[in-house]
């Protein structure tokens, strides 16, 4: 039967990860880049009675204090690269039932097509320690003793959800083909026939739920229960990840009063970024609290009051004027 040649695993690999992490820590320190450290950075997840699920640019998020988390290039395993996005701006909330994480970063181009050999999609991810881990996993895709759960949003999947699955036919509308024999038989859409989730033409969500326990082990999770939406406006992506606080069996669960680690990554498709070629953070703390999000007074309020005052004043003057005029006539 078929078998794979894989790199030797176990102790050597674990050691390599630890060493590599040490090297990266030393290098980033040397370069003066302060990676997000779990001691230093906390993202507060406060409560709100309801959180808008469809619009990452909703005014609701103005009430949430953003936290900037530094990103750097992935330099530990091949393929290396990224580092083109310096930081993600994070906001988070919960409504007692669901966890909402909003990741925002700048990107001049929207890359949502995977329709040619050279086109790659923009993407963003959040990573948590996997359910049942007794120690903090390596933030680099976990390690054999402690895995990670990854929520991966793809601009291409967002486009699939919004306007349907697109292939190179959309780009080359005039492509002429006499016939596709056995068209409609998915046997010949090989990835699809093999059950590859990347080949699926319909997605319930633009966010893929994944697990990993070392480089190269990323695998689609059994339960796909992470929702979300990503929108691009004026050179910024905002991607909202949504999942129930209590995860499905095998997924990490969150609860008010609890704390978890979370790391973040983004990919710029037009830079050829995919896989390990990404801008990535280290773990920060997600502090899930029972505290409520305080609505900031609307920034329009003073203007409205002033406007109302002026209009009111003018009205009084006008009424006064009319009466004065009438009196003259009498």
């Amino acid at each position, binding site marked *: 039967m078929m078998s794979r040649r894989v790199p030797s695993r176990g102790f050597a690999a674990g050691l390599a990860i630890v060493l590599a992490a040490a090297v990266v820590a030393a290098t980033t320190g040397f370069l003066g880049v302060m990676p997000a450290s779990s001691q230093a950075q906390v993202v507060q997840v406060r409560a709100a009675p309801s959180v808008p699920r469809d619009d990452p640019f909703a005014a609701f998020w103005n009430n949430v204090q953003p936290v900037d988390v530094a990103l750097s290039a992935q330099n530990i395993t091949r393929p290396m690269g990224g580092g083109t996005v310096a930081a993600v701006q994070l906001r988070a909330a919960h409504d007692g039932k669901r966890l909402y994480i909003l990741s925002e970063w700048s990107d001049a181009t929207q890359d949502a097509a995977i329709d040619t050999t050279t086109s790659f999609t923009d993407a963003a991810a959040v990573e948590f320690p996997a359910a049942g881990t007794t120690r903090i996993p390596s933030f680099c895709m976990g390690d054999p003793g402690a895995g990670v759960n990854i929520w991966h949003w793809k601009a291409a999947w967002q486009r699939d959800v919004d306007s349907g699955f697109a292939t190179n036919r959309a780009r080359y509308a005039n492509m002429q083909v006499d016939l596709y024999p056995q068209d409609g038989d998915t046997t010949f859409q090989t990835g699809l026939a093999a059950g590859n989730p990347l080949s699926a033409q319909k997605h319930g969500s633009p966010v893929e739920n994944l697990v990993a326990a070392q480089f190269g082990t*990323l695998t689609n999770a059994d339960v796909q229960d992470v929702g979300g939406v990503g929108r691009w406006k004026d050179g910024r992506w905002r991607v909202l990840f949504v999942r129930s606080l209590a995860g499905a069996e095998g997924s990490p669960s969150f609860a008010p009063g609890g704390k978890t680690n979370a790391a973040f990554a983004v990919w710029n498709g037009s830079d050829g970024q995919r896989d390990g070629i990404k801008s990535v953070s280290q773990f920060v703390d997600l502090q899930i609290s029972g505290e409520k999000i305080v609505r900031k007074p609307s920034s329009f309020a003073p203007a409205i009051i002033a406007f109302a005052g002026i209009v009111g004043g003018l009205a009084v003057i006008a009424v006064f004027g009319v009466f004065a005029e009438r009196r003259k006539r009498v």
Partner: protein
Amino acid sequence: MPDVYNWQLGRPMTYRFREAHPKWQFAAVFNINRCIACQTCTMACKSTWTFSEGQEHMWWNNVETKPYGGYPHHWDVNTLKLLDKADPGGQKWDGRTATPAAPYGQFTGKTIFEAAAALGKTDEAIGYLPTDDEWTAPNIFEDTPRNRRESELQATSLPEHRTWFFYLQRICNHCTYPACLAACPRNAIYKRPEDGIVLIDEQRCRGYRKCVEQCPYKKPMFRSTTRVSEKCIACYPRIEGTDPISEGEPMETRCMSACVGKIRLQGLIEVGADGRWAVNPDNPLYYMVREEQVALPLYPQFGTEPNIYYIPPRWVPRPYLHQMFGPGADAAIERYAAPSRRLQAVLQLFRTTQRIVHRFEVVNGHKIGEMNVAGKTMELFNDTVVGFDRNGKEIVRQSVMEPLHDRGPKYLNTI
């Protein structure tokens, strides 16, 4: 990174994984001299494996006109340029050191793996992603010769034509040290231990296209309808004998068995535990590649140890052939132009059966003539080559002289 032994380079080289060899290795010999560029092979593959939506640009088998043609365009020149950048002027062979373990001498330049390190790349190998434009017009520059201007034309004469082109038939080389496999960060590409066939796991591939980028032969291809990569699968059901018409016996692939020009012979090479080919001069592929050294690997300097071997075209200027097939090209042409009795017989095996010939025997026949080749007299004998399958069963018998059938006056002008 471990060192592995690459016999085609006559030296160890660095590779991502340590040596681990299959029991048998899928391999073939393509006789460039005979190809008529009919593209039957190309269509045999297309109509079997790549006829569906999203595969419009995919030609797992393609035949291109050298020196200008290429699919994707200029795939080889692009890679040679990258190598030259990594090792300016250093891509050389030391042909004096030829031994059985290093039949072409030693390559002293850099492989695609070593070049990546030399350029400070963090990839396993140098490479690039061809654009959509480069995947179009798969037969670009068809039949376009070098030196085709009128002022350059001369009467053609061997050993080297001044105005020349030739056809290069290409499939995945099912390399011993595949760059595609090394490049895949997910280990979604594997080399089968039973036959050395290199496959992409269509379930695990995530469409990162590192294989497309780093295969120097540009044989993995990306498919937009499934968003993952695909490549030549060496028609593995036929190699396994699981294709219904193979009746359980290993059978040559579609592109091989369809070859109209009878240029292709494909089989399986037995590989020893140490990774060296088990000595077997009675296997037709072993005999042509290792004994006669009449068939050579394509761009061996890339370092992947490709397993499709070519009998180089006789009429092509030698420097071009040295670049493409290494320093063995001169000797290969010499042996092909005036073949030994045994080689002459083995050359008759091409396209006589779809079954894989594991062993051959030659039964001597009578002398049928003499020829003058490059000032030397060559005798021609009507020997008979007999091919046997892996169970020792005779599957083919073919004499050097094609049998002549006289239809007689009664059947003149009839069909």
